[in-house]
């Protein structure tokens, strides 16, 4: 439905506001922050000013970049593996009811395990000297939303389409290729988008609990531990940017491939 509802502004003004509004909110928040620090005089020690964070950001630029690459690649590997496993398992669960029901408690459990609980265990199981633990945690964190959304997607094929495939005497492989997978695709992509920032956060937080050094998480904690808060914030800013990058890339992917998605069936 291309019809814009309930807005009194024209489409052009709308586009403008969509961009201006979030920027304005951001500028206001930053302004208030800087104001608190410089004018009201909240101690810079407690709450570094945006200006001093930028300063640290520039000074530690190289270390920030290499840490972002390290954490980013852990998150990326986790996201890819977690998504692939999630899609594969969802396919099995969609195909066999038993798999679906057996996986339900396991997936529900995975969805509620805190990273703190998992990190030491994974370090023991896979070795603290490798990035594997972090990648595994990112993978687990990605797995859950991808699995849940993909499974939903696999169940979205409509009766008409299934009948049609039967009328064509299509083989089950053909049905999978021409109907089931394309139908599930937008749901998969939504799951991957949700997983994307989770993967970054998880890979980063996992660094707090052991393993090789050099990632963003380790550097945030080291900087904070030595009271270099402005530097810690600079690393935090980098991690937000990394999370945002993941989110925007997956969002873009979703938008690109979802242009002709099946309309959600709304009738009961």
């Amino acid at each position, binding site marked *: 439905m291309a019809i814009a509802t309930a807005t009194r502004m024209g489409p052009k003004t709308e586009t403008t506001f969509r961009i201006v509004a979030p920027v304005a909110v951001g500028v206001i928040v930053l302004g208030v922050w800087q104001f608190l620090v410089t004018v009201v005089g909240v101690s810079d020690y*407690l709450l570094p000013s945006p200006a001093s964070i930028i300063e640290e950001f520039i000074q530690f630029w190289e*270390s920030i970049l290499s840490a972002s690459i390290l954490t980013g690649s852990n998150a990326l590997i986790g996201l890819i593996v977690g998504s692939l496993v999630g899609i594969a398992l969802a396919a099995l669960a969609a195909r066999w009811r038993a798999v679906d029901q057996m996986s339900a408690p396991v997936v529900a459990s995975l969805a509620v395990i805190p990273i703190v609980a998992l990190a030491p265990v994974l370090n023991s199981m896979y070795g*603290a*000297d490798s990035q594997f633990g972090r990648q595994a945690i990112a993978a687990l964190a990605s797995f859950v939303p991808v699995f849940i959304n993909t499974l939903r997607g696999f169940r979205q094929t409509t009766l008409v389409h299934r009948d049609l495939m039967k009328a064509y005497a299509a083989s089950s492989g053909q049905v999978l290729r021409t109907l089931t997978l394309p139908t599930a695709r937008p749901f998969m992509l939504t799951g991957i988008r949700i997983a994307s920032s989770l993967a970054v956060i998880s890979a980063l937080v996992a660094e707090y609990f052991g393993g*090789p*050094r050099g990632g963003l998480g380790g550097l945030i904690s080291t900087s*904070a531990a030595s*009271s*270099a808060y402005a530097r810690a914030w600079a690393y935090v800013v980098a991690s937000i940017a990394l999370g945002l990058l993941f989110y925007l890339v997956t969002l873009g992917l979703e938008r690109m491939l979802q242009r002709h998605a099946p309309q959600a069936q709304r009738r009961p």
Partner: protein
Amino acid sequence: APGDGGGDGGDGNGGDELTQVKLQLQWLPQGQFAGYFAAQELGYFEDEGLDVEIIPSGGDIVPQDALANGDVDYAIAWVPKVLGSIEQGANLTNIAQIFQRSGTLQVSWADSGIDSVADFEGKKIGSWGFGNEWEIFAAMAAEGLDSSTVEIITQDFNMNAFLQGDIDAAQAMTYNEYAQLLETANPDTGELYQPDDFNVISYEDTEGAMLQDAIWADTERLESDEEYQETTVKFLKAVIRGWVYAAENPEEASEITIGEGSGWGPSHELWMVNETNKLIWPSPNGIGMMDEAAWEATVAGALSAVNESGASPITEEPPATAWTNEWIQQALDELEGEDLDLTGEGFEPIEVELTEGGN
């Protein structure tokens, strides 16, 4: 109930009005802090007219920041970490250097060939990070090694990474992680590991040794707030009593910490109290008195240590306000004459037998 305590009770406090004091620890409740808990449990603080809240910390709480932010009145923290905070703008003073020596070890397998810091080169070296790594870098710097010559691995809460060979040499505190190793069964023999299964490098024996648990106070308040000054002396007196008690009654002190929420088993807890005592006693100048040579060594080490991202804990000498013996001296003076061993000359560590799992 205020314990009537031994001795003649110094300046007993008449009124019911207790002064509220918050003390920030640097980790979970455990034998490392036995003296403070003993002072609390035995009423030493109350005798001094103080109502002390002991606040444990967890993974990310930085005790000296809690102090600098005014959340608490005193904090326990390692010297090099606080030096870093002071350089970042915290205004803090070391008022009692409780631990006289470093309790950090670097443990490797007996057959690993890692006998000294010089052997670290090219190895995977474990550390907890979080500011606990400066001794390693300082010791390495003294050997002419920089951080890029080793691979630093962050250790988590236990020694599994070392036991399974992920790291070649693990950081361990004499009072905790080293005991964890000795509480673990060797899968090959089924028996507990023995000290001779390991090579142990004590940083106390290296150039990198740095001072650890000290009591820190707010510099500004110390200078201008008379009430705080008085409280400080009273606080230190009670703490001294607590640690003297722990030295003389390690079993009881260990039970007290367990009662305060330490989750360790009795044998591990007792080990921890005993090993902590060894780091405190003897204190030739009296407990808590700063050994200036050790301070200078710590500062030198902190200046020389450089981590893998090129950062140092400090880049210049700390200010003169960073430590003072003024208050601990006053506390010791006031306790003089009581029947207390303030230097630990009569201190004898006990033998503790560890059991599997530290339970």
